[in-house]
């Protein structure tokens, strides 16, 4: 239990808004933790408190059994003493230094050179950081942070400064770089696809409070309350593998399914292991097994539970893997859906969103 980050602290911000974070991250099980929440929920404040850039009003922060902050005992380690690398949203590269000098800013030359090579920056070594692309700047910032040999890496919306096409391409690359770096990381984001693509562990923050923590898939499929459900927005996150291509569409096999259903989706350029994200309201339920429809995916399954949620009903299906559908209470009643009944789930190919994701276990050690 020693390999943990335990943060229980409070900070009152000027407009009467209070960040009250109760967070426990198992660093050994979670190489990358995503701190997820809507804008203005206090994520950045929490990250700055962890870095030592902002002092909490009360509480404590303990990293691997070492107190970083303890209001009761008057402990408040300076950022220099915590060795928590911080990646700013706009990367904050030193404009008066070259790329190589930035990376070597707080590191021996040798370490810096090795990181320049690892991150493919050797050719840019003499460039001015303002003259390189956003994606390259991000790599420089990450190399600079890792060169200082941090104990923990904190990333504040690392992809938000990039343009949209670069962002989705960089998601996968960033996770790979974080795993290569071998330093536990906490990534702040408000983008659910980023959360799925980057994280192993996830903490959801709403209105200044941590509402739920756990493995990413679990948080998505079992949100603790309606506010978490609303902010994460995707109920079905299925670990899957791309097994083929058919008339321009990708064919996925959900992990652990030998003869199970294939899911078709639009080719968005992802490769390798992926998470398929499907919102519950995009899953329709029908009793007719062979009706022709425009939806590409038709999965046979049986009803596990029907839970009324106001005018809607949340239907939990077992299609060989758990799948959640959100239908109106009226249709649930008309179809007389009950536990154990056989139905099919209908999903349009365009409703399946992919996020490439390497599991931490198969981290690319060979690429060091």
């Amino acid at each position, binding site marked *: 239990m020693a390999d943990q980050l335990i943060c229980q602290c409070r900070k009152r911000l000027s407009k009467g808004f209070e960040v009250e974070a109760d967070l426990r991250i198992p660093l050994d099980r979670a190489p990358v933790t995503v701190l997820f929440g809507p804008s203005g929920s206090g994520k950045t404040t929490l990250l700055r408190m962890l870095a030592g850039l902002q002092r909490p009003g009360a509480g404590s922060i303990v990293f691997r059994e070492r107190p970083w902050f303890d209001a009761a005992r008057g402990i408040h380690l300076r*950022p220099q003493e915590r060795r928590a690398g911080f990646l700013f949203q706009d990367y*904050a590269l*030193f404009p008066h230094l070259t790329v190589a000098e930035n990376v070597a800013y707080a590191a021996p030359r040798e370490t810096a050179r090795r990181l320049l090579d690892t991150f493919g920056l050797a050719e840019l070594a003499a460039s001015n950081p303002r003259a390189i692309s956003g994606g390259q700047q991000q790599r420089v910032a990450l190399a600079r942070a890792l060169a200082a040999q941090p104990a923990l890496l904190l990333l504040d919306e690392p992809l938000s400064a990039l343009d949209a096409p670069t962002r989705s391409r960089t998601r996968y690359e960033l996770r790979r770089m974080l795993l290569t770096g071998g330093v536990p990381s906490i990534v702040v984001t408000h983008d659910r696809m980023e959360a799925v693509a980057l994280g192993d562990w996830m903490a959801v923050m709403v209105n200044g409070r941590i509402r739920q923590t756990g493995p990413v898939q679990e948080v998505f499929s079992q949100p603790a309350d309606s506010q978490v459900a609303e902010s994460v927005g995707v109920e079905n996150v299925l670990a899957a593998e791309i097994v083929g291509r058919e008339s321009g569409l990708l064919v996925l096999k959900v992990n652990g399914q030998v003869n199970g259903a294939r899911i078709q989706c639009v080719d968005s350029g992802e490769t390798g292991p992926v998470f398929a994200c499907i919102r519950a309201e995009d899953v329709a339920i029908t009793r007719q097994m062979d009706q022709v429809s425009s939806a590409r995916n038709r999965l046979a399954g049986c009803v596990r539970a029907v839970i009324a949620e106001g005018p809607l009903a949340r239907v939990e299906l077992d299609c060989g893997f758990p799948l959640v559908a959100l239908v109106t209470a009226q249709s649930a009643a008309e179809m007389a859906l009950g536990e154990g009944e056989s139905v099919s789930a209908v999903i349009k190919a365009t409703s399946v969103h992919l996020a490439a994701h390497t599991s931490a276990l198969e981290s690319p050690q060979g690429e060091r």
Partner: protein
Amino acid sequence: MDWQAIWLSVRLAGATTAILLALGLPIAYWLTFSPRRWKFLVEALVALPLVLPPTVLGFYVLLAIGPRSPLGAVYAKLTGGMLPFSFQGLLLASVLYSFPFTVQPVAAAFAGVDRKLLEASWCLGVSRAATFRRVIVPLSLPGIATGAILSFAHTLGEFGVVLMVGGNISGVTRTVSISIYDSVQALNYAAASQTSLFLLCVSFTVLALTYALQRRIWAVWPIN
């Protein structure tokens, strides 16, 4: 032309600028980054020489460094000399008189440095002092150069304070401006006009160089 006076003025201005840089940079850092509520009092104090008549400043400096004042007494005990009507006394007065000319441009330059760069440096394990030296100073060079040159030029042209504190001792306290005043009093208009023209040319050249220098540095490192 009174070369002796010119050389004295240049020495005085050079020494004043050096001292001001050594004192002004830490004070400008404190003024820029301190969270203290009462720092506006220090800001007002630093800016005081901008509005105070030089005679008033000179009068108080004279009182403060006189042999009967604590400062004057300590100085007399340490060196055996006296501060009023000496080069050292003049230097002290000049430093006070030009203080805002160093501190204000430098503080403005410090404030222009993106705070995230400092935080990034701290999080990389680099101390505050080293961050000051390695990030803040290099990024504030145009402001520091402006402060140094303005202080130099301002000291070169000071008159009232010199008259009050230094008097008019040839080779010790007779600076360029005093020499010009002397020449005019003696109806030696030729000498006065020569020295005046010299001072005018030097001042213009120095200022023109400052602006040219800043433009170049800013073109290389745009400050946003």
